[in-house]
């Protein structure tokens, strides 16, 4: 595929608001994970919570969109000059030529959780001020960002569980390549909620200590929240671009990875083929690396199958927690920071690398110029997505 320039990006996670705070935490090897005080009884474990979300407010005209997920998205809109870059692009190509494709797995479900706690005792009805369409509804995330940015192109939410935000790059790239639009706002958000904390606990996947992807004693994931955005623009000047994407399904199980990682291998190979690159051209791999025993082992197998023990790889979920449907954009921004800064983040919290792993797992940060990064995102339903970012020229 023709490289698709990325002209702006922003990120909000428990590491901080904006790319600079994110980079500083990665460089300092500072974990954002704290004891689960969001829903301590439903799940326990540790969480990556963004500070100050509840105190943030949406602009008055958009108050009906207020929910934790859209507050996170609004913080991302205002960070890193993102809003201004979109406005400049809209002036050039027209707001109807910019699409909005955002990933989320649970959208504004916290609003629904609150409404269900306030049901009328007699009728069972939800409170009258609960605005389902603008909060809990899946599409609410894209609807809000499209409205807040004043865009007028096509818009939808992609919800392929933890591959959602990564997938938004693919869907938008197809709309741009087909000529439907000239640019797209991609990325997404997922926010802390009782549903996912209790759900992952019910599946036995929550780590009792801060998650330690790739560690021999890893015991599951720590859930985080995040929002992030990127602006993809055809034929524009930008230092970095989306060079390739790959997608696949496991076709195996709703919530367990394929033991031989056939789907993950197919997604990475597909991304390399679309970017017309050999495996040796990739300088760093940001793993999905959730910290569950099965996921990390399966992904190591997949990475080794293609890259042998040559390409440095790491999971950054020890820093951010697993931000679920948002992880694809958080890790896309980390890939862009790695390219920009010549910086490779090592896994955090590993005391002993799983001795069965054969890929070249980075345990410490490294600094050197790099040209291309591959980022993996895998989700429930067996949804896999691999993205390759690199220098545009």
């Amino acid at each position: 595929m023709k490289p698709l320039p990325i002209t702006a990006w922003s990120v909000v996670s428990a590491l901080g608001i904006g790319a600079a705070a994110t980079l500083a935490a990665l460089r300092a090897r500072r974990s954002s994970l704290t004891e689960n005080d969001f829903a301590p009884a439903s799940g326990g474990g540790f969480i990556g919570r963004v500070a100050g979300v509840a105190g943030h407010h949406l602009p008055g005209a958009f108050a009906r969109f207020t929910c934790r997920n859209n507050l996170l998205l609004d913080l991302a809109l205002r960070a890193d000059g993102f809003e201004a870059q979109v406005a400049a692009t809209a002036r050039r190509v027209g707001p109807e030529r910019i699409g909005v494709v955002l990933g989320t797995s649970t959208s504004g479900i916290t609003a629904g959780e609150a409404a269900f706690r306030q049901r009328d005792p007699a009728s069972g009805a939800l409170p009258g001020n609960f605005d389902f369409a603008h909060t809990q509804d899946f599409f609410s995330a894209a609807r809000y960002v499209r409205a807040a940015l004043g865009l007028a192109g096509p818009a939808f939410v992609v919800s392929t569980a933890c591959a959602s935000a990564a997938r938004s790059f693919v869907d938008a790239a197809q709309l741009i390549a087909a000529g439907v639009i000239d640019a797209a706002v991609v990325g997404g958000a997922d926010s802390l909620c009782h549903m996912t904390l209790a759900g992952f606990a019910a599946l036995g996947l929550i780590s009792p200590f801060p998650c330690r992807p790739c560690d021999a004693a890893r015991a599951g994931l720590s859930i985080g929240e995040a929002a992030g955005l990127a602006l993809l623009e055809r034929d524009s000047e930008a230092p970095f671009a989306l060079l390739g994407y790959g997608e696949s399904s496991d076709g195996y199980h709703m919530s367990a990875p394929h033991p031989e990682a056939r789907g993950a291998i197919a997604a990475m190979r597909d991304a390399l083929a679309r970017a017309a690159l050999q495996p040796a051209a990739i300088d760093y791999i940001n793993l999905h690396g959730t910290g569950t025993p099965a996921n990390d082992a399966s992904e190591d197998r997949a990475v080794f199958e293609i890259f042998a023990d040559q390409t440095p790889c790491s999971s950054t979920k020890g820093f951010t927690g697993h931000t679920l449907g948002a992880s694809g954009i958080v890790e896309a921004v980390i890939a862009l920071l790695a390219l920009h800064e010549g910086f490779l983040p090592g896994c955090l919290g590993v005391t002993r690398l799983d001795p069965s792993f054969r890929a070249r797992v980075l345990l410490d940060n490294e600094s050197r110029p790099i040209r291309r990064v591959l980022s993996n995102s895998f989700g429930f339903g067996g949804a896999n997505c691999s993205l390759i970012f690199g220098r545009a020229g």
Partner: protein
Amino acid sequence: MMRADIRGVGLWGPGLEGWAQGRAVLTEAASFVPCPTDPPPPAILPANERRRAGPAARLALTVAEEALAGSGIAPATLRAVFVSSSGEGALVNSLLTTLAEPRAADQAISPTLFHNSVHNEAAGYWSIAHASRAPADSLAAHDASFANGLLKALAEITVEGEPVLFCLFDAPMPFPLSACRRTDFSFAMALLLAPPALRAACPLARLAGGFIPRPAPLTPPRLPALAALTAGNPAAQSLALLEALARRETRRLTAPLFDGHLALEIAPEI
């Protein structure tokens, strides 16, 4: 305009139980007797998954299988785009009810219910049923799900040069979410779409579509009783397209896409 051949079709709605019955109603060869029913469990799923899959996923798989049958396209390598406003809303309603119960925090929610509540549940079960490694997308755009979803499917066909299964579905949510999001009955449709360059056999029809940044209303089906369905389920916005397909008409249609619209042209294969 982006172009695709329609190689297969699936349908399930009130009084429209499968394409054979639906086509008869849409061509006025049979009278429309709306009687909302759920489809039988999809035989394609292994017994365990058939028991576990939620009602919206079962609905989606029913029409997806019907569109696939006779298309001559192998499902194991077939791209899929599943589109639904509310996904498995009934399961979400159930989980939210459990989570709001007093001291629910001490009660584990069902792990199966939880992983089935993801929006891409239908896409996941589809790929499991066919041991498919092909991408299976899962999209939502509230009342504009039909227009945005079909637009994305046409873009994927155009760019990737491969067939795509487009599957549009929504199932009713129980109370209390039913009071916030109207879905009066189950409705689902699927189209097996292929790039014209891959034409191997005579398709059912040819389709072209594109985004136009000017408002346009939804083209309704001609029968008033069927037109009334379009307000009761966002997936039923596809009824005029299905009608044109059933009647083998050459027709221009529009579907609202926020402040713009999806413009469609359908023509029978000559």
